[in-house]
């Protein structure tokens, strides 16, 4: 009996509590930096596309929503000729980001992608490509990748720069 009255009183006090509701279009919820939302293609610090068109993201994608075509520049660097993500299929699992060897494809904290026309959910490369480096600053795949061959250590061959020590905390 006492517990009933007590719970009535406690619930009544909740009238004056701060409400948990976030009134969405006016107020926005906090999204963590690693929130998995819209997918972007980032660039390396030199402003070049990070994507090397290895198809790993398309292979990792469980719903087959990524399609791309590899192309090659005159200097031999690969880039995607077209890169297309169908966001009406995408499940925002982030596997493409995990598969990407160059940190090119990234999921960012933005989910406001509603469209009236379903066809508009298919994003082309120009829609996906951003000017910045996304979540991984200062990372350049070509500066940390590569093989030592024969007499040359890693990064010593022509047109190569010495690799960054990923274990060092110094810039």
């Amino acid at each position, binding site marked *: 009996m006492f517990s*009933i009255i007590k*719970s*009535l009183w*406690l*619930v*009544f006090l*909740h*009238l004056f*509590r*701060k*409400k*948990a*509701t976030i*009134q969405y279009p006016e107020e926005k919820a906090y999204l963590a930096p690693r929130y998995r939302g819209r997918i972007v293609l980032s660039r390396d610090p030199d402003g070049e596309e990070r994507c090397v068109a290895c198809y790993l993201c398309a292979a990792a994608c469980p719903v087959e929503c990524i399609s791309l075509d590899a192309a090659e520049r005159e200097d031999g660097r690969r880039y995607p000729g077209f890169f297309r993500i169908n966001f009406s299929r995408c499940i925002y699992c982030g596997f493409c980001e995990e598969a990407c060897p160059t940190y090119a494809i990234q999921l960012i904290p933005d989910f406001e992608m509603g469209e009236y026309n379903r066809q508009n959910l298919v994003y082309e490369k120009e829609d996906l490509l951003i000017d910045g480096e996304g979540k991984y600053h200062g990372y350049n795949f070509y500066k940390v990748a590569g093989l030592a061959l024969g007499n040359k250590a890693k990064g010593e061959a022509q047109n190569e720069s010495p690799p960054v020590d990923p274990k060092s905390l110094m810039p």
Partner: protein
Amino acid sequence: MNPTVQTLLITLVILFTLLNFAGVLIWVERRVLALLQDRLGPNRAGPFGLFIIVADIIKIFTKEDWVPPFADRKLFILAPAIILFTVLLSFTVVPFAPGIVVLDLNVGLLFFLGLSSMGIYSTVLAGWASNSKYALIGGLRMSAQMFSYEVFMGLSLMGVVILAGSLNLTQIVEVQRGMWFIIPQFLGFLIFMIAGLAETHRMPFDLPEAESELVAGFHSEYSSMKFGMFFVGEYIGLTLISAMIVTLFFGGWLGPAWLPAPICFFLKTFAFILFFILLRAALPRPRYDQLLSWGWKYLLPLALINLIVTGAIVLMTGNPQPN
């Protein structure tokens, strides 16, 4: 004014107010319940989200009005009409203010008790006519719950009747001019409130429609406006119980002189409706056997003790309100 025209006018005004009030209660309940649960509730459509009522009504009217092929068609259609009919008819004896009462019956209280018992037919027939398991279980629960709670619902009011010396609701209110019956009849008030809650099958006692066990209980098979009638019937029933509590224990329209009588009545009734919403937010649903044993083992003896003690005191001190 012609008395017939006057009665007709009062009836129409009361009907209009009640049906609209039931609509507003949908919004009130959703908002208050939300506030009690640290939410905001519907606040988008119109000022304070009031137009949610319009949206609800449009939705409920445009749904497919479907009678299941396995249902008992006649009873199925009759059932929702009964609840609305009995509940609205009960309001004829409720005195909203001096003179503003449709039917000033000298057995008003009995009329109210009789109609509230009639209301059971609605849920039981709905459960039976739906011809489905959950609906039938809901209907059965309703009948058992009603049979047990009806008994002391009537008994708990007998104390009031002894003190007032009348079954006429207007007279019962007039007698409370000196002291509201909540003070001498506190036990009766508690028992009547619990029984009334069970009667309207509101939240703590919503076993007939317990959605976590019985889908929607007795109205599982109902759609469209037939469901809407159960819904509106429930809200008007809530209003009725609140109005009856106010009439019998809280001095009806009596209040400070500067407050017009109907507004005073309305405010008291509304306070009780809000209290019932608080009950809904705070209390869990008891188990079915707990509900019944509670009724028979505690509330019925308490109601009898209340009746005997009140009668004894009135006998000893002589008739308090010579009639």
